[in-house]
C-alpha cells in the first residue's frame, strides 16, 4: 500500500533522510539543478508570452512541474533514451535540446522539431499514452542489444518514458505496463501526476494513487513529492539503476500540480478554483529548493545575478529564434511521407507547387 509521497527537502529547505530513498546530497550540483529549473521556467514563460503575441498558436505550460522534470532528467545517463509527452520542456532542456527547437511544433512550422537521436530525446507525442508503447519497444531493443545487466556503465542503458495522470486511463498505457512487467523491461515510467487532465481531476481517472497501480501489474511503484527535485532525482536514479541492471520496470509517481491551464487555449477558471492554485503556489518547487541552497551556502547573490543574466539572454534568443523559425517548404509534406518519393506523390507535388507558385 503506497501512502504519502516521499519528500527529501522540507518546505523550510531543510533536508530529511528517507530509508527507502537515499541521496548523497553533498555530491549533487545543487546550483546546477536550480539553474536548470529557473531556465526551464523562463522558457515556459517566454513561450506563453510568444503565444499571446500570436507567434505561437498554442503552448502547454509546465509551470509548477520543474522539479519533477529536472529531477528525472538529471538522473538520465547520456545513452539512456527519454520519451516525453508534449510538456517536458525542462527534460528537453536537460537533455541539451535547443529550447528554440521546442517552439516549431506550436508555431506550425513543423510536426517534430529536433533529431531524437542527437540527444536521445524523442519527439513530442500528442496522442495521450501512445509513447509508452514506443518506450517499451525501445526497451525490448536494448535487451536484444545486450545492453542490460552487464555491469558496464558504458553499456547498460534504460528508457525513461514520461506520462501524465490522464494517460493512465488509456488502454495503450496499461498495455505498456503489461509488456514491461511480463518481459521485465529496462523502462522507467515517470508519471507527473499534476492532478488535472484538462478539466478532469485525478479522481475521474482513478480511485487509487498512480504509484499503487504498478502493483496490480506486478512491478514497482514509488510515490514522491513532485515538487521536490531531490526526491525526484533520487527516485529516478534508483529506478534507472534497477532498470539498467536488469531488474525491471518502475512506475514513479511525482505528485505535483499543473499551475497553469492545460494549454494557452484552456480556460481553467471554468473547472477549478484559484484557491487550490494558491495552495500549490505556496509549495513552489523552485522557491523550496532556493531555501535549501541558501541555507547551505550554495547560492549567493553573484550566482543569482549570473543566472538572471543567462535567463535574459535566453529569453531574447527565444523571441528572435521563434520569429526566425523557417516555414516548411511546400514540397516537404510530399517528400517526408515516405522514405522515397513515390511516382504518384511526385506528380501530386508537381501539381501542388504549380498551384502555389501561380498564386504568388
Amino acid at each position, binding site marked *: 500500500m503506497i501512502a504519502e509521497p516521499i519528500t527529501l527537502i522540507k518546505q523550510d529547505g531543510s533536508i530529511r533522510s528517507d530509508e527507502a530513498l537515499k541521496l548523497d546530497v553533498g555530491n549533487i550540483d545543487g546550483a546546477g539543478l536550480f539553474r536548470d529549473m529557473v531556465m526551464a521556467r523562463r522558457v515556459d514563460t517566454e513561450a506563453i508570452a510568444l503565444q499571446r503575441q500570436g507567434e505561437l498558436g498554442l503552448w502547454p505550460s509546465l509551470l509548477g512541474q520543474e522539479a519533477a522534470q529536472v529531477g528525472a532528467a538529471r538522473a538520465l545517463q547520456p545513452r539512456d533514451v527519454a520519451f516525453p509527452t508534449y510538456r517536458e520542456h525542462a527534460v528537453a532542456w536537460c537533455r541539451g535540446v535547443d529550447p528554440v527547437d521546442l517552439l516549431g511544433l506550436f508555431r506550425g512550422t513543423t510536426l517534430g522539431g529536433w533529431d531524437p537521436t542527437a540527444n536521445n530525446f524523442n519527439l513530442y507525442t500528442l496522442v495521450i499514452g501512445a509513447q509508452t*508503447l*514506443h518506450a517499451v519497444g525501445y526497451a525490448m531493443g536494448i535487451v536484444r542489444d545486450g545492453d542490460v545487466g552487464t555491469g558496464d556503465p558504458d553499456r547498460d542503458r534504460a528508457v525513461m518514458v514520461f506520462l501524465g495522470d490522464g494517460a493512465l486511463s488509456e*488502454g495503450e498505457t496499461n498495455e505498456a505496463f503489461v509488456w514491461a512487467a511480463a518481459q521485465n523491461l529496462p523502462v522507467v515510467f515517470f508519471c507527473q501526476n499534476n492532478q488535472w487532465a484538462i478539466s478532469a481531476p485525478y479522481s475521474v481517472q482513478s480511485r487509487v494513487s498512480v504509484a499503487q497501480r504498478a502493483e496490480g501489474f506486478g512491478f514497482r511503484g514509488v510515490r514522491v513529492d513532485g515538487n521536490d527535485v531531490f526526491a525526484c532525482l533520487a527516485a529516478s536514479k534508483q529506478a534507472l539503476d534497477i532498470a539498467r541492471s536488469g531488474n525491471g520496470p518502475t512506475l514513479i509517481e511525482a505528485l505535483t500540480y499543473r499551475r497553469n491551464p492545460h494549454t494557452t487555449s484552456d480556460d481553467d477558471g471554468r473547472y477549478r478554483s484559484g484557491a487550490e492554485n494558491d495552495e500549490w503556489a505556496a509549495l513552489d518547487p523552485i522557491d523550496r529548493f532556493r531555501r535549501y541552497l541558501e541555507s547551505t551556502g550554495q547560492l549567493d547573490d553573484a550566482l543569482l545575478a549570473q543566472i538572471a543574466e543567462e535567463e535574459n539572454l535566453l529569453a531574447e534568443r527565444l523571441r528572435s529564434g521563434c520569429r526566425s523559425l523557417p516555414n516548411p517548404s511546400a514540397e516537404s509534406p510530399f*517528400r517526408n*511521407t515516405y*522514405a522515397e518519393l513515390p511516382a*504518384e506523390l511526385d506528380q501530386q507535388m508537381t501539381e501542388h507547387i504549380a498551384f502555389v507558385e501561380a498564386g504568388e
Partner: protein
Amino acid sequence: MNQAMTKMPIAHALNLGLRHAMEADSKVMLLGEDIGQLGGVFRVTDGLQKAFGPERVVDSPLGEAGIVGGAIGLAMAGYRPVCEIQFDGFVFPAMNQIITQLAKYHHRSEGTITVPVVIRIPVGGGIGAIEHHSESPEAYFAHTAGLKVVCPSSAQQAYDMIGLAIRSQDPVIFLEPKRSYWAKSNVDLNRTPQALDKAEIVRKGDDLTLVTYGALVPVALKAAEICHEEGRSIEVIDLRSLSPIDDATLIQSVERTGRLLVAHEAQRTAGLGAEVASRVQEGAFHSLLAPIIRVTGYDTPYPPSRLEEDWLPGLDRILDGVDRSFAY
C-alpha cells in the same frame, strides 16, 4: 539452401520468406500472438522460434496495440520488426498506433525517424469462420498516407513480396488472403522479384480488363477461362499493391480493351474498386466503351458464414459483371 523451383502453399512460401529474411539480417524479428511455440494459428511462422530463438520470434501478450506500438519502438532502436495480427478483425485495437504513429512518424520527423515495420494480416472470407475472422480492411490502410499496402495472390508473390516488404524502409501492411494459404503453386526462390509497387498482368487479353487482388485472383482467372471459351478475351490484372496503385499498368490495359471490371471482397462503398475506377476513368476516359463495373461485397457487415458464399463476389457474379459490361 535454395532450390530452383518447388511447388508449395502460400503459407510455406511466407514461412520461407520470413526465414530467409531473418537469416539475411539479424535485426529482423517477429512478434505476434501465438507465433512462437504454436507457429501461428495458420502455421505461417512454424519452426521459426525453434530456429531463431524466443528473443527474435516473440510470443507477445494479447494486445494488438502493444504489438504495433512495441514494434515502432523496436524500429526506433534499429530493429526490423515483422508483426503478425492474428486475424483481420482484430487489427482494430492497433489502429491508433498504425494510423497516428506508424504512418506518420517519417513525416512528423521530417525523415529523421524511419519505421521499417511490416504488419502481416490474414484477410478475407470464404473459410466458414465466425465473426471478425473474414474482414477486408484494406481501404482503411490504403487511405492512410504514409503506409504501403500490399497483397500477394500466389506463393511466388508471397515469397517475393514478404522479402521486399521487410527490406522496405517504409511501414508495410501485408495482407495475406487466408483462404488461399494452402493453395499450392510453383515458387522460384532465385527469380528477381517484381517491384513491390507494381501490378501484374496474370493473363493477357483484348476485350475487357479484370482487376482484382488476393483471393479473387484465381477466381478471376477461372472467369477469364470461361469467357475465353465463350469467345471473349479477358485481361486479368492482379493489383498486388493497393497503396500505391500502379495506375500506368491499369490505364495502358484499358486503353487497349476499353472495358474495366474491378472485383474485391470488401464492401462496395469507398472500397478500392471506387479508387481504381476513378483513376481509370480519369486516365483512359476516351477509351471506355462501357461504364466501369464493380463486383464487390455488399454494404453490410460480413454475414454469418452460412450466407457467405452468395455474399462474396465469386465466379458467377464476376461473369454477370462481364456480361453487364458487354451490354454496352
